[in-house]
């Protein structure tokens, strides 16, 4: 059931907000042990929020998300509710304020079911680096859910929330959405305020939406977008109804297929994305071959830029003002022990890489060169968007893989991000949706990338495909109401 339909049924009284929340909480209790998608479940507060929402609905004061049960990724601050970033460093950290995105949801009377599991500090593509245990894929619990918003994606796929807030720095909404067979939207950089998002790479981080379909992603995005006095990068251009173009005629739309994205993908993945391309052609869209020549440098450039920023952002975790505090005879010792005990291995790797890229003698060679590659990629995207309206690519080179089969090799993990990092580097909006299943029945994702602040178009184009594509549900997803 789409969120717009859920809204209608709540407003008509056909469904009760408290009953709806109770149903989701029951499903979380029944199924989440097998998945690990939640770190914190907010049972009591969720029921209070549902009651408040139901009163508002009964009084005719409902807003788009009143009474709708959502989850929030655990790197987004929620006042009074622990926010851990799936790290020992913040395992008992309780924010004193809500992130702006959460505040905007609260202003609409949403129900927060809980905080979802993730890779530590958003650094990863598997959601296996969490100090609370990894997330398992609802399609096959022996496989990863993707990352870093794996908990959010698994929860949506298994019907443990109606939609979810995730975050995307280099693919962390889109890739887990693809792995878990749902839809994930990374907005244009500056669309959603980052105030209250615990920073990983500040020039790349964006709060995004994981939902069961593109229309739902747009529905939630409409409530959280827009400029914010607490985030100078949040743009005035981000506003409006992001589902406005859903259902409109997209014949004549020009869809670019950059050839470099298909090299290195599994054959099944390329074939599934090309079948999606054929579908769009069959409904009157024009397909165009195009090129992003600098793709070969993209993964390296992304990791240099993001790690440099992460090294700076994570320097605040010193055990003094908040977070894990180790022992130390002096201040320097205290800081080192706090960070040694608080951070996991991947986080330490990224901090080290970031400081390497920024250090004297290497700054020009690595960090500055990466920024020039970023500028070049942006220019190459602009050239493509002179001739195309959206770009269609795979979301990941493969479907979800077995837990433990790759995570110990950081380079292999980083290279898996090849299909998602360029939209992040360029600051462009991108949406991932299921376009097929591999021989093992695992979902395959396609991504549609659009011009800056043109989320409406990619949502509408994605929606069109989804309405004619028959998804296979996983064994956790409930039928009926959810």
């Amino acid at each position: 059931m789409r969120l717009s339909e859920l809204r209608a049924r709540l407003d008509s009284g056909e469904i009760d907000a408290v009953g709806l929340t109770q149903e989701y909480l029951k499903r979380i209790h029944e199924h989440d042990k097998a998945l690990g998608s939640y770190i914190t479940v907010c049972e009591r507060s969720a029921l209070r929020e549902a009651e408040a929402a139901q009163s508002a609905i009964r009084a005719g004061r409902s807003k788009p998300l009143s009474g709708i049960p959502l989850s929030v990724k655990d790197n987004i601050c929620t006042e009074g509710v622990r926010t851990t970033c799936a790290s020992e460093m913040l395992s008992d950290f309780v924010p004193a304020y809500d992130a702006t995105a959460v505040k905007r949801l609260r202003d609409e009377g949403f129900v927060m079911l809980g905080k979802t599991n993730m890779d530590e500090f958003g650094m990863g593509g598997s959601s296996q680096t969490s100090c609370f245990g990894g997330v398992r894929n609802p399609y096959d619990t022996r496989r990863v859910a993707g990352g870093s918003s794996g908990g959010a994606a698994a929860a949506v796929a298994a019907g443990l929330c109606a939609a979810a807030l995730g975050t995307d720095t280099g693919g962390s909404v889109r890739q887990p959405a693809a792995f878990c067979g749902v839809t994930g939207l990374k907005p244009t950089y500056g669309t959603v305020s980052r105030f209250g998002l615990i920073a990983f790479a500040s020039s790349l981080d964006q709060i995004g939406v994981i939902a069961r379909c593109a229309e739902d992603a747009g529905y939630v995005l409409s409530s959280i977008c827009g400029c914010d006095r607490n985030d100078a990068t949040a743009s005035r251009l981000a506003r409006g109804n992001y589902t406005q173009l859903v259902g409109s005629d997209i014949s004549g739309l020009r869809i670019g297929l950059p050839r470099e994205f298909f090299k290195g993908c599994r054959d099944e993945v390329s074939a599934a994305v090309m079948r999606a391309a054929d579908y769009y052609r069959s409904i009157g869209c024009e397909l165009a071959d195009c090129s992003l020549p600098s793709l070969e440098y993209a993964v390296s450039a992304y990791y240099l830029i993001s790690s440099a920023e992460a090294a700076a952002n994570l320097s605040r975790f010193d055990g003094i003002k908040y977070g894990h505090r180790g022992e130390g005879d002096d201040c320097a010792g205290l800081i080192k022990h706090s960070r040694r005990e608080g951070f996991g291995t991947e986080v330490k790797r990224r901090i080290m890489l970031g400081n390497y890229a920024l250090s004297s003698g290497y700054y020009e060679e690595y960090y500055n060169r990466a920024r020039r590659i970023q500028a070049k990629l942006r220019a190459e995207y602009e050239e493509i968007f002179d001739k195309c309206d959206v770009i269609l690519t795979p979301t990941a080179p493969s479907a979800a893989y077995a837990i433990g089969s790759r995570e110990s090799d950081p380079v292999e993990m980083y290279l898996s991000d090849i299909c998602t990092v360029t939209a992040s580097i360029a600051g462009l909006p991108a949406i991932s949706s299921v376009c097929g299943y591999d021989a093992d029945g695992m979902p395959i994702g396609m991504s549609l990338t659009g011009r800056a602040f043109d989320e409406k178009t990619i949502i509408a184009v994605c929606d069109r495909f989804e309405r004619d594509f028959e998804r296979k549900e996983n064994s956790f997803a409930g039928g009926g109401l959810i």
Partner: protein
Amino acid sequence: MIDKEITARLAELSGLEFTDSELSAITRDMTNIIELMDRVRGFDAEAEPHEPDAVTFTELRPDECRGSYPVGKILENAKVIKDDQFVVPKVVG
């Protein structure tokens, strides 16, 4: 070429510390990671006219004095406090 000496120096810069075996392991990881990062050397930055873009700040709020968060709330997450202050080991002497 990343060796243990470089890794140890990076660890110092990063406020991290490792045992000797951990240092060996992370040196191996960093060697492989830097080899991947070296791909950027194939990009001819000198021939590339595009300058890196700055992040766009669209909304600078007026510089005015406003209230902040209650001190008590901010201190709730600190492990060691005294008289509304964060306590740390001696920094000097």
